[in-house]
């Protein structure tokens, strides 16, 4: 692929742009606060890739190299816009991710256990069908997550990057990554549950 790009093969360039841009947009959103700025970052990153191809030694995969360029452009842009997300500040308010009213209180011998009304009810296969509304729901709920949770959940669960890659790209610790991922996933599960249980009595 690098050889084809070096030879000026436009089809090859179109291919890599399609293949990597979604992930690059997600990485960029980790550093800038709007979709439009992220698009600018990705555009600038691709121009950097075009210019830097001759120096690309193939020590890493093309994808890793492209992502590193995206991260660097994104970080620079985030600083310039004074909108850089504070990745060092952990998103943990210490509260549980599930409404405490759904668990038994201290007076109960099963303190901390689900109450009868609070226990989760399984979802039906119909509710989860990918050709149904589940995918649209999760897509729109993802957009509503706090920025840092959304970025981590997207890179891990939508794009399939591993913990190490996400920590390196965003410059966060593994512990920080875990908290953001946990809170983001828990919130998404809760939003789906709220939707599926809507109209039913719940505590």
């Amino acid at each position, binding site marked *: 692929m690098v050889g084809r790009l070096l030879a000026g093969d*436009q089809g090859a360039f179109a291919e890599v742009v399609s293949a990597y841009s979604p992930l690059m947009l997600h990485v960029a959103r980790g550093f800038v606060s709007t979709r439009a700025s992220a698009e600018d970052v990705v555009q600038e990153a691709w121009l950097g890739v075009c210019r830097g191809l001759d120096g690309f030694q193939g020590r890493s995969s093309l994808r890793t190299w492209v992502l590193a360029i995206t991260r660097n452009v994104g970080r620079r842009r985030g600083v310039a816009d004074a909108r850089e997300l504070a990745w060092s500040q952990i998103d943990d308010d210490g509260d*549980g991710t599930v409404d405490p009213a759904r668990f038994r209180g201290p007076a109960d011998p099963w303190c901390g256990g*689900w109450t009868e009304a609070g226990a989760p009810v399984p979802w039906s296969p119909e509710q989860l069908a990918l050709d149904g509304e589940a995918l649209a729901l999760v897509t729109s709920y993802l957009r509503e997550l706090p920025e840092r949770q959304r970025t981590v959940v997207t890179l891990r669960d939508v794009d399939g990057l591993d913990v190490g890659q996400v920590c390196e790209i965003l410059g966060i610790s593994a512990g920080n990554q875990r908290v953001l991922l946990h809170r983001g996933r828990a919130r998404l599960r809760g939003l789906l549950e709220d939707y599926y249980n809507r109209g039913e009595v719940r505590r």
Partner: protein
Amino acid sequence: MTPPPTLSCQQVVELVSDYLDGALDPSTATLVEEHLAQCPGCATYLEQMRQTIGLLGAVREDQLSEATRTGLMAAFRDLRPPRP
């Protein structure tokens, strides 16, 4: 003698994401597994977490706008003219 430690449902739900990622230390993972084996509520919670992650894996990708893409293709032609 101290009784064997156990986890409450309220504690288990905060460990489920790490459990699915294999990020728990082995003794905590065992406690979570023991709890899940006898608690339908938490087993459902875990399953729903898995299902949520499964749905995320199917989220359609974001793409560049057509205008940006066209601009990039033009820039590539300029910067890297076809070479025989």
